[in-house]
């Protein structure tokens, strides 16, 4: 497939950044868009903890584990059931994400194990754009 080039956007947060909106369907069928930053430094999908109930995750669907962030050690709540995600511009390709929910995390991060297993990512900081190519 051809490359999808996406302009940075600020989403009301003051500065254009590499935000990608995914349409996400949780394990119980709850659907909604989530805007996250492309983050090659994150092992997988990291979401603010408040997304867990919105996506239909119950405490039984989540396992606590330790992780490391910029600020040091953090307790992460790893989903034990996957969600589904779709890039709106590529509606016929659905992929699984296995989010980690983190208290205190305030921005969704699309890391390597989920999005980047399916799409090669190119950051073009000088143009304020990024590109996704389906792997």
């Amino acid at each position, binding site marked *: 497939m051809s490359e*999808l*080039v*996406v*302009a940075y*956007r*600020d*989403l*009301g*947060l*003051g*500065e254009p*950044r590499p935000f*990608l*909106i995914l*349409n996400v369907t949780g394990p119980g069928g709850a659907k*909604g*868009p*989530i*805007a996250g*930053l492309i*983050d090659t*430094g*994150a092992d997988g999908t990291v979401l*603010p903890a*408040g*997304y867990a*109930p*919105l996506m239909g995750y119950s405490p039984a669907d989540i396992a606590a584990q330790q992780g490391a*962030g*910029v600020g040091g050690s953090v307790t992460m709540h790893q989903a034990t059931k996957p969600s589904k995600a779709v890039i*709106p*511009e590529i509606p016929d390709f659905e992929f699984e994400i296995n989010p980690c929910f983190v208290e205190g995390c*305030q*921005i969704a*991060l699309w890391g390597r194990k989920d999005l980047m297993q399916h799409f090669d990512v190119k950051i073009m900081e000088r*143009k304020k*754009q990024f590109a996704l190519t389906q792997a």
Partner: protein
Amino acid sequence: MAAVQQGPEVLEDLTKYAGSWVAIRDGKVIADALDSVELRNKPEVHKDDFLMPVPDAASSAFLF
């Protein structure tokens, strides 16, 4: 030419909602709350509104 991605746009400055969750419709904030579930359960929030957290220091540098 870069595509402007489909999906919700935010036309308001969200910095005044720092630390809260907001519900966006047609680019505008229609409700806010400190908790995502509290926000979702507000009567003015529709099922297809765009819900997002606003970082505490939304206008500052992001370090991840």
